[in-house]
Protein backbone atom coordinates (compact mmCIF):
# COMPACT_ATOMS: atom_id res chain seq x y z
CA UNK A 1 0.00 0.00 0.00
CA UNK A 2 2.79 2.40 0.89
CA UNK A 3 4.55 1.68 -2.40
CA UNK A 4 1.48 2.65 -4.41
CA UNK A 5 1.37 5.91 -2.52
CA UNK A 6 5.04 6.68 -3.06
CA UNK A 7 5.34 6.25 -6.83
CA UNK A 8 3.00 8.99 -8.09
CA UNK A 9 4.60 11.58 -5.82
CA UNK A 10 8.12 10.47 -6.69
CA UNK A 11 7.41 10.82 -10.38
CA UNK A 12 5.87 14.19 -9.68
CA UNK A 13 9.02 15.20 -7.85
CA UNK A 14 11.15 14.20 -10.81
CA UNK A 15 8.83 16.00 -13.19
CA UNK A 16 9.17 19.19 -11.20
CA UNK A 17 12.91 18.99 -11.66
CA UNK A 18 12.37 18.97 -15.41
CA UNK A 19 10.08 21.96 -15.34
CA UNK A 20 6.52 20.99 -14.38
CA UNK A 21 5.10 24.07 -12.74
CA UNK A 22 4.84 23.94 -8.96
CA UNK A 23 1.17 24.94 -8.99
CA UNK A 24 0.21 21.96 -11.09
CA UNK A 25 2.23 19.73 -8.74
CA UNK A 26 0.29 21.15 -5.82
CA UNK A 27 -3.02 20.67 -7.59
CA UNK A 28 -2.17 17.07 -8.42
CA UNK A 29 -1.17 16.33 -4.84
CA UNK A 30 -4.36 17.88 -3.52
CA UNK A 31 -6.62 16.00 -5.91
CA UNK A 32 -4.79 12.72 -5.35
CA UNK A 33 -5.95 12.57 -1.73
CA UNK A 34 -9.52 13.27 -2.74
CA UNK A 35 -10.09 10.52 -5.30
CA UNK A 36 -7.23 8.80 -7.05
CA UNK A 37 -5.50 7.87 -3.79
CA UNK A 38 -8.44 8.23 -1.43
CA UNK A 39 -7.13 6.76 1.82
CA UNK A 40 -10.15 4.63 2.61
CA UNK A 41 -11.44 3.56 -0.77
CA UNK A 42 -8.19 3.11 -2.69
CA UNK A 43 -5.42 2.69 -0.16
CA UNK A 44 -7.62 0.79 2.33
CA UNK A 45 -6.15 2.62 5.32
CA UNK A 46 -7.86 3.95 8.41
CA UNK A 47 -10.70 1.45 8.43
CA UNK A 48 -11.20 1.23 12.18
CA UNK A 49 -12.49 4.75 12.80
CA UNK A 50 -14.36 4.68 9.49
CA UNK A 51 -16.57 1.90 10.72
CA UNK A 52 -16.84 3.04 14.29
CA UNK A 53 -17.84 6.68 14.10
CA UNK A 54 -19.97 6.76 10.99
CA UNK A 55 -23.28 6.01 12.70
CA UNK A 56 -24.25 9.65 12.19
CA UNK A 57 -22.88 12.56 10.20
CA UNK A 58 -21.98 14.83 13.14
CA UNK A 59 -19.47 12.46 14.79
CA UNK A 60 -18.10 11.53 11.36
CA UNK A 61 -17.45 15.17 10.53
CA UNK A 62 -15.87 15.79 13.94
CA UNK A 63 -13.58 12.80 13.51
CA UNK A 64 -12.68 13.90 9.97
CA UNK A 65 -11.78 17.40 11.12
CA UNK A 66 -9.69 16.02 13.99
CA UNK A 67 -7.81 13.79 11.58
CA UNK A 68 -7.18 16.75 9.27
CA UNK A 69 -5.80 18.72 12.20
CA UNK A 70 -3.48 15.93 13.37
CA UNK A 71 -2.40 15.07 9.82
CA UNK A 72 -1.61 18.72 9.07
CA UNK A 73 0.37 19.34 12.24
CA UNK A 74 2.26 16.07 12.04
CA UNK A 75 3.10 16.57 8.36
CA UNK A 76 4.36 20.09 9.08
CA UNK A 77 6.54 18.98 11.99
CA UNK A 78 7.92 15.92 10.19
CA UNK A 79 8.63 17.93 7.06
CA UNK A 80 10.48 20.56 9.09
CA UNK A 81 12.51 17.82 10.81
CA UNK A 82 13.11 15.70 7.76
CA UNK A 83 16.77 16.55 7.32
CA UNK A 84 17.56 15.77 10.96
CA UNK A 85 15.91 12.35 11.26
CA UNK A 86 18.09 9.36 12.05
CA UNK A 87 16.84 6.36 10.05
CA UNK A 88 16.36 3.87 12.84
CA UNK A 89 14.61 6.30 15.16
CA UNK A 90 12.26 7.86 12.66
CA UNK A 91 9.20 5.67 13.37
CA UNK A 92 9.57 6.52 17.03
CA UNK A 93 9.73 10.23 16.19
CA UNK A 94 6.64 9.99 14.00
CA UNK A 95 4.74 8.15 16.72
CA UNK A 96 5.74 10.70 19.36
CA UNK A 97 4.69 13.62 17.14
CA UNK A 98 1.37 12.07 16.25
CA UNK A 99 0.62 11.10 19.87
CA UNK A 100 1.26 14.69 21.02
CA UNK A 101 -1.07 16.24 18.47
CA UNK A 102 -3.78 13.65 19.11
CA UNK A 103 -3.60 14.47 22.84
CA UNK A 104 -4.06 18.14 21.99
CA UNK A 105 -6.97 17.38 19.65
CA UNK A 106 -8.59 15.22 22.32
CA UNK A 107 -8.27 17.97 24.94
CA UNK A 108 -9.77 20.44 22.47
CA UNK A 109 -12.77 18.20 21.82
CA UNK A 110 -13.32 17.55 25.53
CA UNK A 111 -13.20 21.28 26.23
CA UNK A 112 -15.26 22.71 23.40
CA UNK A 113 -17.59 19.97 22.11
CA UNK A 114 -18.04 17.64 25.10
CA UNK A 115 -21.04 15.77 23.69
CA UNK A 116 -19.22 14.89 20.48
CA UNK A 117 -16.20 13.91 22.54
CA UNK A 118 -18.37 11.46 24.47
CA UNK A 119 -19.93 9.99 21.33
CA UNK A 120 -16.52 9.51 19.76
CA UNK A 121 -15.17 8.13 23.00
CA UNK A 122 -11.98 6.08 22.73
CA UNK A 123 -11.76 6.46 18.95
CA UNK A 124 -10.12 9.88 19.18
CA UNK A 125 -6.92 8.55 20.79
CA UNK A 126 -7.06 5.72 18.27
CA UNK A 127 -6.15 8.34 15.64
CA UNK A 128 -2.60 7.72 16.87
CA UNK A 129 -2.57 4.27 15.31
CA UNK A 130 -4.54 5.38 12.29
CA UNK A 131 -2.42 4.04 9.44
CA UNK A 132 -3.18 7.07 7.27
CA UNK A 133 -1.21 9.50 9.37
CA UNK A 134 1.86 7.41 9.91
CA UNK A 135 1.86 6.32 6.25
CA UNK A 136 1.71 9.90 5.01
CA UNK A 137 4.49 10.90 7.41
CA UNK A 138 6.63 8.04 6.12
CA UNK A 139 5.78 8.27 2.44
CA UNK A 140 5.38 11.98 1.90
CA UNK A 141 6.26 14.38 4.68
CA UNK A 142 9.68 12.93 5.40
CA UNK A 143 10.66 13.24 1.76
CA UNK A 144 9.06 16.44 0.51
CA UNK A 145 9.15 20.14 1.14
CA UNK A 146 6.89 21.88 3.64
CA UNK A 147 4.35 23.17 1.14
CA UNK A 148 3.92 19.83 -0.62
CA UNK A 149 3.49 18.12 2.76
CA UNK A 150 0.83 20.61 3.82
CA UNK A 151 -1.10 20.17 0.60
CA UNK A 152 -0.81 16.40 0.81
CA UNK A 153 -2.14 16.50 4.37
CA UNK A 154 -5.08 18.67 3.31
CA UNK A 155 -5.85 16.44 0.34
CA UNK A 156 -5.69 13.17 2.23
CA UNK A 157 -7.59 14.63 5.18
CA UNK A 158 -10.30 16.01 2.92
CA UNK A 159 -10.59 12.66 1.12
CA UNK A 160 -10.90 10.84 4.43
CA UNK A 161 -13.50 13.28 5.79
CA UNK A 162 -15.48 13.07 2.57
CA UNK A 163 -15.51 9.27 2.74
CA UNK A 164 -16.57 9.30 6.37
CA UNK A 165 -19.39 11.74 5.67
CA UNK A 166 -20.69 9.78 2.69
CA UNK A 167 -20.73 6.55 4.71
CA UNK A 168 -22.28 8.32 7.70
CA UNK A 169 -24.89 9.99 5.53
CA UNK A 170 -26.03 6.67 4.10
CA UNK A 171 -26.11 5.00 7.51
CA UNK A 172 -27.87 7.87 9.23
CA UNK A 173 -30.56 8.31 6.60
CA UNK A 174 -31.36 4.62 6.59
CA UNK A 175 -31.24 4.15 10.34
CA UNK A 176 -33.08 7.27 11.51
CA UNK A 177 -34.55 8.96 8.46
CA UNK A 178 -32.64 12.12 9.30
CA UNK A 179 -29.31 13.63 8.36
CA UNK A 180 -27.54 15.89 10.88
CA UNK A 181 -30.67 15.44 12.99
CA UNK A 182 -32.82 17.10 10.34
CA UNK A 183 -35.63 14.85 9.16
CA UNK A 184 -35.52 14.20 5.46
CA UNK A 185 -37.44 11.04 4.76
CA UNK A 186 -41.24 11.02 5.17
CA UNK A 187 -42.71 9.87 8.46
CA UNK A 188 -43.91 6.60 6.95
CA UNK A 189 -40.35 5.36 6.58
CA UNK A 190 -39.52 2.45 8.86
CA UNK A 191 -35.93 2.91 10.01
CA UNK A 192 -33.42 0.13 9.34
CA UNK A 193 -32.03 -0.39 12.83
CA UNK A 194 -29.35 -2.67 11.42
CA UNK A 195 -27.66 0.33 9.85
CA UNK A 196 -26.70 1.79 13.20
CA UNK A 197 -25.14 -1.48 14.33
CA UNK A 198 -21.79 -2.97 13.28
CA UNK A 199 -23.50 -5.09 10.59
CA UNK A 200 -24.68 -2.04 8.71
CA UNK A 201 -21.24 -0.45 8.92
CA UNK A 202 -19.37 -3.41 7.45
CA UNK A 203 -21.86 -4.16 4.72
CA UNK A 204 -22.25 -0.51 3.63
CA UNK A 205 -18.51 -0.02 3.45
CA UNK A 206 -18.11 -3.25 1.50
CA UNK A 207 -20.77 -2.25 -1.01
CA UNK A 208 -19.32 1.26 -1.35
CA UNK A 209 -15.89 -0.21 -2.02
CA UNK A 210 -17.41 -2.44 -4.66
CA UNK A 211 -19.06 0.61 -6.22
CA UNK A 212 -15.75 2.49 -6.25
CA UNK A 213 -14.07 -0.49 -7.91
CA UNK A 214 -16.73 -0.53 -10.62
CA UNK A 215 -16.36 3.21 -11.25
CA UNK A 216 -12.56 3.12 -11.47
CA UNK A 217 -12.63 0.14 -13.82
CA UNK A 218 -15.12 1.93 -16.04
CA UNK A 219 -13.01 5.11 -16.02
CA UNK A 220 -9.91 3.11 -16.83
CA UNK A 221 -11.61 1.52 -19.83
CA UNK A 222 -12.88 4.81 -21.40
Amino acid at each position, binding site marked *: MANNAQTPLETQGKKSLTGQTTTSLYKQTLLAGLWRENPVFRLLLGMCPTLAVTAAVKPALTMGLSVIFVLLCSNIVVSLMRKLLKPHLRILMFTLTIATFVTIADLFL*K*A*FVPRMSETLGPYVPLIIVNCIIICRAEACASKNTLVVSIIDALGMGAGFTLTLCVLAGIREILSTGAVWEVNILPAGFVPWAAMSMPVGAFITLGLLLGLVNVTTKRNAKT
Partner: protein
Amino acid sequence: MLKAIRHFIEQSWLLIVASFFFGLLIATTNTAWSPRIEQNKTTKINNLMSGLMPKAEKFELAAELQIESSKGKKVKSNVYKGLAEGRCLGWAFNCEGPGFADKIELIVAVDENFENFAGYAVLASNETPGFGDRIKLPLYRQQFAGAPADKLELARTGDAEKIDSEIVAISGATVSSEAVIKIINNFVVQVKEQMQKKGLIGDGK
Protein backbone atom coordinates in the same frame (compact mmCIF):
# COMPACT_ATOMS: atom_id res chain seq x y z
CA MET B 1 31.85 5.22 29.13
CA LEU B 2 31.87 8.86 28.16
CA LYS B 3 32.21 7.87 24.52
CA ALA B 4 29.15 5.64 24.85
CA ILE B 5 27.12 8.50 26.34
CA ARG B 6 28.31 10.84 23.61
CA HIS B 7 27.33 8.34 20.95
CA PHE B 8 23.92 7.93 22.58
CA ILE B 9 23.30 11.66 22.67
CA GLU B 10 24.48 12.13 19.09
CA GLN B 11 21.96 9.54 17.90
CA SER B 12 19.01 10.65 19.94
CA TRP B 13 19.36 14.37 20.57
CA LEU B 14 16.44 15.09 18.28
CA LEU B 15 14.27 12.67 20.21
CA ILE B 16 15.18 14.26 23.54
CA VAL B 17 14.63 17.81 22.32
CA ALA B 18 11.37 16.87 20.62
CA SER B 19 10.08 15.07 23.72
CA PHE B 20 10.82 18.11 25.81
CA PHE B 21 9.12 20.43 23.37
CA PHE B 22 6.06 18.17 22.96
CA GLY B 23 5.78 17.72 26.71
CA LEU B 24 5.72 21.48 27.08
CA LEU B 25 3.06 21.77 24.39
CA ILE B 26 0.81 19.19 26.05
CA ALA B 27 1.31 20.75 29.48
CA THR B 28 0.36 24.23 28.25
CA THR B 29 -2.75 23.05 26.43
CA ASN B 30 -3.84 21.03 29.41
CA THR B 31 -3.43 23.91 31.86
CA ALA B 32 -5.30 26.20 29.51
CA TRP B 33 -8.26 23.90 28.93
CA SER B 34 -8.70 21.67 31.96
CA PRO B 35 -10.86 24.13 33.93
CA ARG B 36 -13.16 24.23 30.93
CA ILE B 37 -13.26 20.42 30.77
CA GLU B 38 -14.21 20.21 34.47
CA GLN B 39 -16.85 22.86 33.89
CA ASN B 40 -18.34 20.83 31.06
CA LYS B 41 -18.72 17.80 33.30
CA THR B 42 -20.57 19.70 36.04
CA THR B 43 -22.74 21.54 33.48
CA LYS B 44 -23.85 18.26 32.00
CA ILE B 45 -24.91 16.80 35.36
CA ASN B 46 -26.61 20.05 36.33
CA ASN B 47 -28.56 20.10 33.08
CA LEU B 48 -29.76 16.55 33.59
CA MET B 49 -30.78 17.26 37.17
CA SER B 50 -32.65 20.43 36.16
CA GLY B 51 -34.55 18.33 33.68
CA LEU B 52 -35.65 16.03 36.49
CA MET B 53 -36.36 18.74 39.07
CA PRO B 54 -37.40 21.74 36.99
CA LYS B 55 -38.35 23.89 39.99
CA ALA B 56 -34.92 23.67 41.63
CA GLU B 57 -32.75 26.76 41.28
CA LYS B 58 -29.45 25.24 42.17
CA PHE B 59 -27.87 21.99 43.18
CA GLU B 60 -25.22 21.43 45.76
CA LEU B 61 -23.24 18.33 46.54
CA ALA B 62 -24.60 16.88 49.75
CA ALA B 63 -22.68 13.64 50.16
CA GLU B 64 -20.27 11.32 48.45
CA LEU B 65 -21.22 7.75 49.20
CA GLN B 66 -19.74 4.35 48.47
CA ILE B 67 -22.41 2.02 47.18
CA GLU B 68 -21.94 -1.66 46.55
CA SER B 69 -22.92 -2.44 42.96
CA SER B 70 -24.69 -5.65 41.98
CA LYS B 71 -21.32 -7.14 41.04
CA GLY B 72 -19.96 -6.53 44.50
CA LYS B 73 -17.72 -3.62 43.56
CA LYS B 74 -17.77 -0.35 45.47
CA VAL B 75 -18.99 2.50 43.31
CA LYS B 76 -18.86 6.16 44.17
CA SER B 77 -22.20 7.90 44.17
CA ASN B 78 -22.62 11.65 44.52
CA VAL B 79 -25.82 12.84 46.15
CA TYR B 80 -26.97 16.35 45.22
CA LYS B 81 -29.52 18.46 47.04
CA GLY B 82 -31.91 20.43 44.86
CA LEU B 83 -32.64 23.82 46.40
CA ALA B 84 -35.16 26.55 45.62
CA GLU B 85 -35.24 29.63 47.83
CA GLY B 86 -33.13 27.77 50.37
CA ARG B 87 -35.66 24.96 50.71
CA CYS B 88 -34.82 21.39 49.81
CA LEU B 89 -36.91 20.25 46.86
CA GLY B 90 -35.41 16.83 46.43
CA TRP B 91 -32.29 14.79 45.98
CA ALA B 92 -30.48 13.42 42.95
CA PHE B 93 -27.81 10.76 42.89
CA ASN B 94 -25.96 8.90 40.20
CA CYS B 95 -25.95 5.17 39.91
CA GLU B 96 -24.68 2.58 37.50
CA GLY B 97 -24.86 -1.08 36.75
CA PRO B 98 -24.69 -3.66 33.97
CA GLY B 99 -27.12 -3.32 31.10
CA PHE B 100 -27.77 -5.49 28.06
CA ALA B 101 -24.62 -4.43 26.24
CA ASP B 102 -22.38 -2.31 28.41
CA LYS B 103 -22.64 -0.35 31.62
CA ILE B 104 -25.65 1.92 32.13
CA GLU B 105 -25.17 5.13 34.10
CA LEU B 106 -28.22 6.97 35.42
CA ILE B 107 -29.10 10.00 37.47
CA VAL B 108 -32.09 9.31 39.70
CA ALA B 109 -34.10 12.05 41.38
CA VAL B 110 -36.26 11.54 44.47
CA ASP B 111 -38.38 13.85 46.52
CA GLU B 112 -37.10 15.41 49.74
CA ASN B 113 -38.11 12.53 51.99
CA PHE B 114 -36.89 9.80 49.71
CA GLU B 115 -40.46 8.61 49.44
CA ASN B 116 -41.22 8.95 45.76
CA PHE B 117 -39.15 9.05 42.62
CA ALA B 118 -39.10 12.22 40.54
CA GLY B 119 -37.68 10.33 37.60
CA TYR B 120 -34.38 9.34 36.09
CA ALA B 121 -32.13 10.40 33.21
CA VAL B 122 -29.56 8.36 31.32
CA LEU B 123 -25.99 9.61 31.71
CA ALA B 124 -24.35 6.99 29.55
CA SER B 125 -25.49 3.79 27.93
CA ASN B 126 -24.72 1.62 24.95
CA GLU B 127 -27.96 -0.28 24.50
CA THR B 128 -29.27 -1.64 21.21
CA PRO B 129 -30.51 1.27 19.09
CA GLY B 130 -34.26 1.13 18.57
CA PHE B 131 -34.81 -1.33 21.38
CA GLY B 132 -32.83 -0.99 24.61
CA ASP B 133 -32.10 2.60 23.63
CA ARG B 134 -35.72 3.39 24.39
CA ILE B 135 -34.86 3.63 28.10
CA LYS B 136 -33.90 7.19 27.21
CA LEU B 137 -37.35 8.01 25.89
CA PRO B 138 -40.03 9.74 27.99
CA LEU B 139 -42.45 6.89 27.23
CA TYR B 140 -40.56 4.57 29.60
CA ARG B 141 -39.17 7.21 31.92
CA GLN B 142 -42.47 8.78 32.85
CA GLN B 143 -43.59 5.60 34.57
CA PHE B 144 -41.02 6.34 37.26
CA ALA B 145 -42.17 9.85 38.07
CA GLY B 146 -44.14 9.61 41.32
CA ALA B 147 -43.53 5.90 41.83
CA PRO B 148 -42.79 4.91 45.42
CA ALA B 149 -39.09 4.90 46.21
CA ASP B 150 -39.10 1.27 47.20
CA LYS B 151 -38.53 -1.99 45.38
CA LEU B 152 -39.85 -1.48 41.84
CA GLU B 153 -41.03 -4.49 39.87
CA LEU B 154 -40.95 -5.19 36.17
CA ALA B 155 -44.16 -6.29 34.49
CA ARG B 156 -44.32 -7.46 30.90
CA THR B 157 -47.81 -6.12 30.33
CA GLY B 158 -50.00 -3.78 32.25
CA ASP B 159 -51.20 -0.24 32.53
CA ALA B 160 -48.31 2.08 31.92
CA GLU B 161 -50.40 5.10 32.93
CA LYS B 162 -50.91 3.91 36.49
CA ILE B 163 -48.20 5.22 38.80
CA ASP B 164 -47.20 2.53 41.24
CA SER B 165 -44.31 0.25 41.92
CA GLU B 166 -45.07 -1.87 38.84
CA ILE B 167 -43.21 -0.73 35.75
CA VAL B 168 -44.23 -2.00 32.32
CA ALA B 169 -41.25 -3.18 30.29
CA ILE B 170 -40.38 -1.86 26.82
CA SER B 171 -41.54 -4.45 24.32
CA GLY B 172 -38.52 -6.06 22.69
CA ALA B 173 -36.17 -4.72 25.35
CA THR B 174 -36.98 -6.60 28.51
CA VAL B 175 -33.37 -6.96 29.56
CA SER B 176 -32.56 -3.26 29.29
CA SER B 177 -35.80 -2.31 31.09
CA GLU B 178 -35.05 -4.76 33.85
CA ALA B 179 -31.46 -3.54 34.10
CA VAL B 180 -32.66 0.02 34.77
CA ILE B 181 -35.03 -1.18 37.48
CA LYS B 182 -32.37 -3.36 39.11
CA ILE B 183 -29.86 -0.51 39.15
CA ILE B 184 -32.36 1.93 40.65
CA ASN B 185 -33.56 -0.60 43.25
CA ASN B 186 -30.03 -1.47 44.30
CA PHE B 187 -28.92 2.12 44.68
CA VAL B 188 -32.00 3.76 46.18
CA VAL B 189 -32.07 1.33 49.09
CA GLN B 190 -28.42 1.82 49.97
CA VAL B 191 -28.38 5.59 49.38
CA LYS B 192 -31.46 6.05 51.57
CA GLU B 193 -29.88 3.96 54.33
CA GLN B 194 -26.59 5.84 54.25
CA MET B 195 -28.28 9.24 54.06
CA GLN B 196 -30.41 8.38 57.11
CA LYS B 197 -27.30 7.27 58.96
CA LYS B 198 -25.66 10.57 58.15
CA GLY B 199 -28.75 12.33 59.41
CA LEU B 200 -29.26 14.22 56.18
CA ILE B 201 -32.80 12.98 55.66
CA GLY B 202 -35.45 11.70 57.97
CA ASP B 203 -37.38 14.81 58.80
CA GLY B 204 -37.76 16.53 55.44
CA LYS B 205 -34.83 18.94 55.98
